[in-house]
Structures are given as structure tokens and as C-alpha cells.
């Protein structure tokens, strides 16, 4: 697996080795070498699961659930069986914590169980994801102060991070909190709870599902439904197209430049930032669409994760449209417990800053992500202040509501978000080089590829979003004859297959 292309966007981490394992898991790894939805081995895996799942009679509901649990375990174990056992083990522990909480009404004991559950989940998350960062920072600090630490710094490339750890940790924490606050009843069925955490469509990179929403679905009888299959296929194809035809193509523009920003000129840098903004959106929302589509094919509905975020008119609006499952999680489990919008304005701003900083840290254990979170927190505060500023200026408010004003707000929001994406990388020093190139014209290498296909992709994406936003697509697709729509799906799939670069295999949000 090559990490070279995306090293600048994610925390560098090691891929597990498959040399001294059981033959069964080695064989499994050969069958499903990477846990990515747009790869052909995954499609074969999904097809196999679908056939087996729908062949089980409807009345054998638990058999279907067990099948999905086993399939999900194998999906993870194909990547790393040790980590699959770890995830399963912590899930069983979370299940037991929930059951224990349900068995007692003593507030102190319930609180202790809640803290144990959260402590275990955060402890594992910190061990795998943040250990290297904090130890290395401590090492640096001690060396700076003149001490000689008794431990050596850790090489991030040697740390294996279980994929999806941040996602399922948040799911487990939300379950524990919801049980503690009696929002939901503790789940009695172990396979249902295992499926809630391990369900393979949302295991790699979300959407972050809530127990109350998902566990209810596991009790609902699942029937084969062509409409639902069509929805699932359509979402999966849209996601695959976004990932393969757009995100991976954009990576060809931005990766070489952002990996070595010092070598390129300012124009190339602006193109790279634009390409990266498009890439990260299509990569993550494409993945989410595929996850939701795959879940639909199995009769499950996952929460929507994206809603045309680059058409947001301000940063608050952006966070209502971008990674919705995370932003609502942060709102419900961090922002509101901190006090939310209640209290003074400054208290509200403090809560926003804390929430967004934690959001940044959630993405990765590096200063770049933390600063990215702080920057978004600052943008949210600035937006709130601007709202107060506009409060008694009806003419300005009226202008901002016009088409021109809305376009201007969309542009400014997109610009601010794109600038923040520059920070979205482990190495802050690289980001500073990019900023210096962006705002101070400097010579250097030009883009390796003609930027025509970049513009073509951006315009295509804008047209698609406009078609959807204006409601035109709804009208067109509703009137389209079914065979034409089916052929359109096929053309979408084949175009994605043709345009996908030869060595595209990773998602940016993989291992977040």
C-alpha cells in the first residue's frame, strides 16, 4: 500500500505486515487487500455479503445480524486480525458497561461505570493515536529545557493506528452517555450491539451513527425493496464517481505541489489549494455516499454526512453541511455540555473555540490539525461577531440576502475554508511555506499537468451542485424513463472507472 501520495494530508502511520500470521488471515488479506469501497475486491465482498444476507429468510433476523457481524469482523481482519480482535473486545466491554449501567439505579455507580467506559475508549484512542504525538512533544520540551529524557522519540511511521478508531470510539462514547442520561435503554442483545459498532459500511470512516438510531433499525424486519436498492446503488455510484473520477484526479494536481511546496511557484500553489479543496470534499463525501449506499443495500439507513458544504453562505452554515455526523456529535456531547449558546457572548465563544479545537485534535495528533480546529473556531467566532455587527444594519443585511450578496458570501466562505485546508496536515511548517507562496508571489516549478482538466472538473462539480440545489435534477430524474436512468448509472460507473488514476487506493479520512 502506498502512502506516499497522501502523506502530507494525514498522520503518517504504518500498515500492518502480514508475514507471520495465520494462513487464514493471510488468505483473507489476499482476497481483500484494502478496506476501501471503490476497489474491486470490496465490490466482490459486498456482492457476496448481499447474496448471503438476502438469501437468509426474513424470519431468521438474528441469523442475518450474525452474518453482518461476521462479515464486518472479516472486513476488518483482512486488514489486521489483531486489531479486529481489539475492536471486537472493546465493543464487548462497552456492551457490558451498558448492561451494568442498566442494572443499577445508584447514580454514583452509574457515573463510575460511565467514566470507566469513556476512560477505556479514550485510553485506547490516546494509546494508538495520540501517544506518539504527546510523547514526542514531551521529549522535545524536555530536550529544550536541557534535560535528557530516558525515553526515545517515537517514529510515527512505526505506529499502527486501527482504522476508524476515532469514529467507533465516538459511537461507543455516545452510546455510554445516552444510556447514562437514560436517553436510550442499554442494548440487551450482544450481536445487535456488535453490529452497531462493527457494521462494515460505517466502520472505516463513518458516518458516526447514534445507538438510538441504529439499534432501532436492527429490530426492524428487513425486506427486499427495489426502490431501496435503487437508492443504494445510486448513492454508491455517486460516491464512487466522486472518489475515483474527481478526488483521485485532483490528487494528481495537489499532491506533488503540497508535498514539496518550496519547489513550486505561487500560481501552482493556488491551483493546488483549489484542487485540494475539491479533493477532500469529493474524497470524504464520496466515501460517505458509498457507505450510506452500501448500508441501504443491506436495509440500513445511515445519517447524511454532507450537504453541498461549499455552497454554504457562512462558516456556521458550512459546519451544518460538512461532516454532519461529527459536527452534531461535537454539538451534542461537547458544546452543549460545556454550556452551548447559553450564558454570555464570551462564554459562547469560549465553548465554540474549545469544541472546534477538540474537533481539530480528533482529526489527527499533530499541531496542524489543532491549529486547523482553532482556525475554524476563530472563524465561527468572527461570524458570530459579524452577525452582531449586521444586526442594526438593515441595508447591509438586505444586500447580503441578494443573489450577488449570497454569491459573495459563498465565495468568502469557500475562500476561508480553503485557506484552513492548508493547515489540515501534520506539519505546520509546510503550511507556512504554502501560505508564504500563496500571498507573496514567488517563482518555482509550474504544475506538471495542464490545468484544463482541473477547471473542467471544478466547473462540472459546480454545475452538478447547481442542478441539485435548483431542484432541476429532481425534475429531470423524476421524468427520466427507468431504462435511461439505469443506462445513466452505467455510464457514471464506467466514466469513473476510466478516469480513475492507476494507483488510487486510499481515503484521506482513512485512519482518522
Amino acid at each position, binding site marked *: 500500500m502506498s502512502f506516499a501520495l497522501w502523506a502530507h494530508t494525514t498522520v503518517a502511520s504504518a500498515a500492518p505486515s502480514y508475514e507471520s500470521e495465520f494462513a487464514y488471515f493471510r488468505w483473507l488479506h489476499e482476497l481483500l487487500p484494502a478496506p476501501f469501497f471503490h476497489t*474491486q475486491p470490496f465490490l466482490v465482498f459486498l456482492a457476496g455479503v448481499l447474496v448471503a444476507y438476502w438469501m437468509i429468510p426474513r424470519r431468521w433476523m438474528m441469523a442475518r445480524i450474525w452474518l453482518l457481524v461476521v462479515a464486518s469482523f472479516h472486513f476488518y481482519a483482512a486488514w489486521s486480525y489483531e486489531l479486529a480482535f481489539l475492536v471486537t473486545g472493546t465493543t464487548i466491554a462497552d456492551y457490558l458497561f451498558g448492561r451494568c449501567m442498566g442494572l443499577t439505579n445508584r447514580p454514583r455507580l452509574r457515573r463510575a461505570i460511565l467514566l470507566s467506559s469513556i476512560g477505556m475508549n479514550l485510553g485506547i484512542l490516546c494509546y494508538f493515536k495520540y501517544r506518539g504525538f504527546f510523547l514526542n512533544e514531551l521529549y522535545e520540551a524536555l530536550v529544550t529545557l536541557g534535560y535528557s529524557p530516558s525515553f526515545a522519540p517515537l517514529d510515527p511511521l512505526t505506529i499502527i493506528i486501527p482504522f476508524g478508531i476515532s469514529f467507533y470510539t465516538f459511537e461507543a462514547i455516545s452510546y455510554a452517555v445516552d444510556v447514562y442520561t437514560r436517553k436510550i435503554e442499554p442494548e440487551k442483545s450482544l450481536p445487535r450491539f456488535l453490529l452497531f459498532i462493527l457494521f462494515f459500511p460505517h466502520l472505516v470512516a463513518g458516518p458516526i451513527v447514534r445507538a438510538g438510531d441504529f439499534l432501532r433499525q436492527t429490530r426492524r*424486519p428487513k*425486506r427486499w*425493496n*427495489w*426502490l*431501496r*436498492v*435503487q*437508492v443504494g*446503488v*445510486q*448513492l454508491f455510484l*455517486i460516491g464512487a464517481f466522486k472518489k475515483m473520477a474527481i478526488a483521485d484526479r485532483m490528487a*494528481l494536481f495537489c499532491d*506533488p505541489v503540497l508535498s514539496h511546496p518550496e519547489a513550486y511557484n505561487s500560481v501552482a500553489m493556488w491551483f493546488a489549494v483549489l484542487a485540494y479543496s475539491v479533493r477532500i470534499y469529493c474524497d470524504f463525501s464520496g466515501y460517505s*455516499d458509498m457507505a*450510506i449506499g452500501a448500508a441501504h443495500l443491506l436495509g440500513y*439507513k445511515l445519517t*447524511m454526512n454532507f*450537504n*453541498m458544504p461549499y455552497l454554504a453562505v457562512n462558516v456556521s452554515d458550512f459546519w451544518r453541511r460538512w461532516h454532519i455526523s461529527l459536527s452534531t456529535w461535537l454539538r451534542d456531547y461537547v458544546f452543549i455540555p460545556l454550556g452551548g449558546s447559553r450564558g454570555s457572548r464570551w462564554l459562547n465563544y469560549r465553548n465554540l473555540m474549545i469544541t472546534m479545537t477538540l474537533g481539530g485534535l480528533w482529526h489527527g495528533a499533530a499541531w496542524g490539525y489543532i491549529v486547523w480546529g482553532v482556525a475554524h473556531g476563530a472563524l465561527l467566532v468572527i461570524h458570530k461577531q459579524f452577525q452582531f455587527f449586521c444586526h442594526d444594519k438593515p441595508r447591509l443585511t438586505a444586500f447580503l440576502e441578494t443573489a450577488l450578496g449570497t454569491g459573495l458570501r459563498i465565495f468568502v466562505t469557500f475562500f476561508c475554508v480553503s485557506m484552513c485546508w492548508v493547515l489540515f496536515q501534520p506539519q505546520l511548517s509546510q503550511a507556512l511555506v504554502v501560505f508564504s507562496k500563496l500571498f507573496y508571489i514567488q517563482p518555482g516549478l509550474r504544475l*506538471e*499537468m*495542464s490545468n*484544463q*482538466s482541473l477547471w473542467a472538473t471544478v466547473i462540472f462539480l459546480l454545475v452538478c451542485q447547481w442542478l*441539485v*440545489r435548483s*431542484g432541476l*435534477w*429532481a425534475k*429531470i*430524474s*423524476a421524468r*427520466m424513463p*427507468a*431504462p*435511461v*436512468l*439505469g*443506462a445513466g*448509472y*452505467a*455510464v457514471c*460507473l*464506467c466514466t469513473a*472507472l*476510466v*478516469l*480513475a*488514476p*492507476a494507483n488510487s487506493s486510499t481515503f484521506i479520512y482513512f485512519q482518522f
Partner: protein
Amino acid sequence: MRSAAITRPTQRFRRLSLRLRVVKVPALRGVRVRSPRRGRGARVVIFSFLVAVVLLHGAVVLMMDVVWPRLRDPEYGLRVAALQQRLREYPQRPLVLAIGNSRTAMGIRPEAWEAVRPGTPNDPLLFNMAIVGSGPILELLTLRRVYADGFRPDLVLLEYWPPFLRQDGEFGEAARFDPRRLRWSDRATIRSYYPNAAAVERRMWLTRLNAISDNRQSLLIQTDDDWFPRPWRINGNWVDLDPWGWLPGMDPAPQDVATRRRLIEHQRPFAIDRFQGHTIHPESDRAIREAVALVRAQGAEVALVYLPESAEYQSWYPPDVEHAACAHLATLCRELGVPVINTRDWMDECYLADGFHLSRIGATLFTARLGPVMAELLGPSGKRP
């Protein structure tokens, strides 16, 4: 009661519709507004999608294997198109095809012969049909393709190069040729010569079953190479082909010693590696004999050509390899009665870019010198003397 209510189709679809309404996925709006009867429509959509995917894949296979076979192997296909054009321009002239590897592809420049030929109607029409990476097996494969495509050369120049007579492991020709470029008609050669023929045939099947994804890079780069960054472009073997099949190679000026030195040093470890444990594989010998027999069966003349190598490159040959190659060539010459054009020492090293590939100027000078020899082989009538 509950299950009875759920099974009623109208309610069921309404329920699903309500659920879908919660998922404000923009592209689903079309689905949302549909009436419950659209369930049947959804089935048609899925089936037409599956049928269209199969048909599109079938269309690509048909396109690459029947309609425009050059899409499958553009290096060969573009040469075929160019050769057809040359034959239309010069229908009467005896055809001479040069078949070999990159040394031939870059070293034989038919245009140079055109510039110096006497100008009689019987002057040979030289065309470069070399495929980069070819050893005797791929030369035979190319030759069979040439005859299958209806070309009838009067003389075939087969390149003889000892380093490519190895067929073991990574040095085998199978490892140098992408199976996605193979045609169905190549299977006879593969079955007869490839050590892993079954695996290669399976790969050929897979590349047709998975036609769009597996051939995407080749298809896209033939459409517009701007879609790829430079290091990803796989069209180096054909993008600069001239109308005579010549592939312009490296271009250091004769006096540019430094560049040539760098190129030679780059090649040295590969060459030494190739010569270590070198033996002439029996399959290579068999392929050469079969190629000669094939050409003769078609009533044409054949000659083996040993292209130039610099003195330094020649010095890298271990004595036993050098001796074995000379003996093998002599045996072929004696047993098959095939003429050998040994041009190994024809060119000064300043015309050899990396010691074994002729530079562009070198190719021009070399072909101008090779032309009369070739014409002599054909005789004044343009046919076998």
C-alpha cells in the same frame, strides 16, 4: 396486525418514502417524488444498469479486439497504420521489415534510407516494425501478427541480441511484455513459449472481463496524454513514432561525452546483472528457428542482424557469454543457411547513446549504411537472388 399493515404496498412505500425524505441526499430527490408504483421502475432501473454495464464492457472489448485493435497494443497498431500508408504510397517496392527490440526501434531509421536510395522502382521499402523489449519469442509473435494482418514482406530483418536470449525468471520476455497488450491470436505463441502460459491466458481473460478498468490508462493516454503527469505516461514507446515506424531515441550530440557517460553508467548495473548467469535458453533458439522457418514458408528472405554496440558495452560481456553467443550465431547460420548482417562494430561509440542504443544521428548514419546491404540481399529485382 403490525405485519399485515407493513405488507400493504402503499403504506410500505409511503413509509420508505418518509424515511428517505429524512435523508436529504440531493440526488435522491428524484426518487422521493415518485409515486409508489415506481417500485417497478426501480427494478427496471437496476436491471437496465446491470445490462448497460455489461454492454459497455462488451463494446470496449469489441472496440479493442475487433474494430480498432491498435487500441490494445498501440505500439504495434500505430506501426501497422503507418505501414499501410507507406504501402499505399509505394505499392510496387519490395517490402523489408525490421523486427527487434528497442535497439532496432531506435536504431533503424527508414527515412534515412529513403534519402540515400538509388531511386529505382525496385528499391526496398524498409519499415521498422520493432517492439520495445522483444527477444526471439516476441519477435516471432510480431512476425505472426504481421502475416495475420495481411502483410507479405519480401525480406525480414530479425534482430539477434545475446542479452535477450535469456528466458529465466525476471529476464524472460514474458516479464517484459504487458499481457493486456496480447491479442487472442497471440495465444498460439504464448502456449508454445511462455512458461506461465495458463496464468497469462487467465490474465488475458480478466483484462477482457474487466475491460474498462483494466485498460483505462492505455485508453485514456491514447485519447489525451495531458490527463496524466509526465512520470505516469506510458506512451513513451509509441508517442513519437515517425511515419516509418522509427522511434526517436536518446539524443546526446556526438561530442557530448558527459551525457553519454551518465547514460552508460546508468545502464552498467543492469547489463552486468543481465550477464550474470547468462545462458542461451533453448526456447530462444527454438523461437529464432521457427521465425526463420515461418518467413521462408511465406516465400520471403530472412536475415539476422546484430546491431551496433560500443566497445565498452562489448567489454561487459563475460568471455563465456561472448563465446556462447558467437557459437550460437554460427550454428544458426550454418544450420539454417540464414545470412547474418553483423553490424556490431559499424558505429563509433559517439553515435551510441548509452553503449547499445543508437542516438538519433547514429540511427540516420547507420540506416544509410545498412540500406545497400539490405538491397543486396534482395537483389536487383527486389526478390530473392
